[in-house]
């Protein structure tokens, strides 16, 4: 076992997902199996192989610097869980800006 419930809890925090104790106990061994079998990739991923990030070799796709109409504010905010003064309202933030 390389992935403990504690590891899963730490990852869940990083991913901002609350997990119940039951979920943690169920997930940890499942994830462990998945990750162990995925470790297979390192068998052939030798230093001389270049990684592929994009399936097709396109480069330099640009748009011209032209202004396009924005959304009406009402549309932008229509789906907001809370809004105030044409802004999205969010609960108080504890952490500082990056």
């Amino acid at each position, binding site marked *: 076992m390389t*992935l403990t419930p504690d*590891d*899963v809890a730490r*990852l*869940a*925090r*990083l*991913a*901002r*997902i*609350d*997990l*119940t104790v039951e*979920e943690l106990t169920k*997930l940890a061994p*499942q*994830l462990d*199996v*998945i*990750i162990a*079998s*995925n*470790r*297979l*990739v*390192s*068998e*052939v*991923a*030798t230093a001389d*192989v*270049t*990684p*592929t*990030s*994009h*399936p*097709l070799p*396109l480069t330099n*796709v640009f*748009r011209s610097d032209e202004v396009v109409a924005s*959304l009406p504010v009402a*549309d*932008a905010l*229509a*789906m*907001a*869980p*809370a809004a105030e003064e044409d802004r*999205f309202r*969010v*609960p*108080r*933030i*504890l*952490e500082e800006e990056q």
Partner: protein
Amino acid sequence: MSADILRATAAELSSELAAGNVSSVEVVTAHLDQITRIDEDVHAFLSLDAGRALDRARHIDAARAAGEALGPLAGVPLALKDVFAYRGLPTTCGSRTLENWVPPYDATVTRRLADAGLIILGKTNMDEFAMGSSTENSAFGPTHNPWDLDRIPGGSGGGSAAAVASFMAPLAMGTDTGGSIRQPAAVTGTVGVKPTYGGVSRFGLVALASSLDQGGPCARTVLDAALLHEAVAGHDPRDSTSIPAPVPPVVAAARSGDVSGMRIGVVSELGGEGYQDGVEVRFNEALVLLQKAGAELVEVSCPHFAYALAAYYLILPAECSSNLARFDAMRYGLRIGDDGTHSAEEVMSASRGAGFGEEVKRRIIIGTYALSSGYYDAYYGSAQKVRTLIRQDFERAFAEADVLVSPTTPTTAFRIGERIDDPMAMYKNDLCTIPSNLAGNASGSFPCGLAPEDGLPVGLQVMAPAMADDRVYRVGAALERELSAIWGGTVIDQLADSTAGDYLGVSREGVL
């Protein structure tokens, strides 16, 4: 009349509409009625858009009456996977998180469907955020396989495949990240094509894994799939990864079905152990038919396909962990715990904990792990290298063969609930379909019969090089022609006319 409409292919409806033998309103009404009648059993749809569909049908009928030039599919109804943004209807992606989210914009695919005069009946069920191979991961309950309602219709696009297979729509749009169009097509006896990556715009398609996702057609015939493919494909300046080149001649290829002189490569790694007997039997029979149609069979080896599943289940979770970060309850979507006592951080975590299902959580956590510092090289970095090796396998194989073939899935449709607690067993459904997503090439699944042991459909997968999507259709059409000559119809016709398909209400006896 109604059953005739339901049994008709999109191509047939197209000519009947053009000839004035039927109106779009009649066609749309017949399909809405079919949905009302049987979708309680199948559960292919998450939402219906009857009012707007009928309005559009009236509009198309009026335009036709006024002599306006209309596209070939104008007035033909379609089911849209609930992962494409469509104004005026929720786009849920099968998730609680987005249960009430109505996008303020249309996906490029949605817009092109409308421009082509296709009429969207509603949105179809799917595994949450397209994560799954059975549609059991939908937050709104599973979709049932029209062949056997106790079985899965495949996934993630089980709703789209089931809608087409149960005559609730002649066409549907799906998306395919690791097989989500092809695997449901295989297990429902329908046609599903994943175009070349970049062939169909991803703008407005809610991303699962950006470098793998691709929208594509679901249909009951090869020609129908090609017609839909042509309607939605082509360069889109809103998608940086969209290919700036003309759409391959897929409709012509589907009409021709000429495989004479074509070299068809059988991938030796995709078969054998773990493959259901009936799947292999039908697959091998299909090869014989293709050979009879003039194709030359060659054996090819793609040794790195053995690593595809492992690479896929690192790349996909990594990309999805990032793509799904935006569902943080701040701007839209489910918000839990905003009672003035909890911080934004707490509300984010609580909302994501409550809004995401088990499989989504599983993959986000794996992806977070695969990208985290100290593990990147071993996992994500290595998986991207495997991707290179698989691409090179394809390149070598395509030097020897014009297309590659394999079974689409190792097994036929399994029972609902059978694999839900065994993620690894579930993941193996996608063994054959994943390599094409990793490499970005075109790939489709075509019915090749029913497995003798369970009477369930088997799919044959055709893989072609990037931007050679037409070859996929050429082979699919050849197979369809040869098999129909033997059966006197498609695989789906066999369902419609069987006792198992009685509930569909479209048997020939009923028609006649």
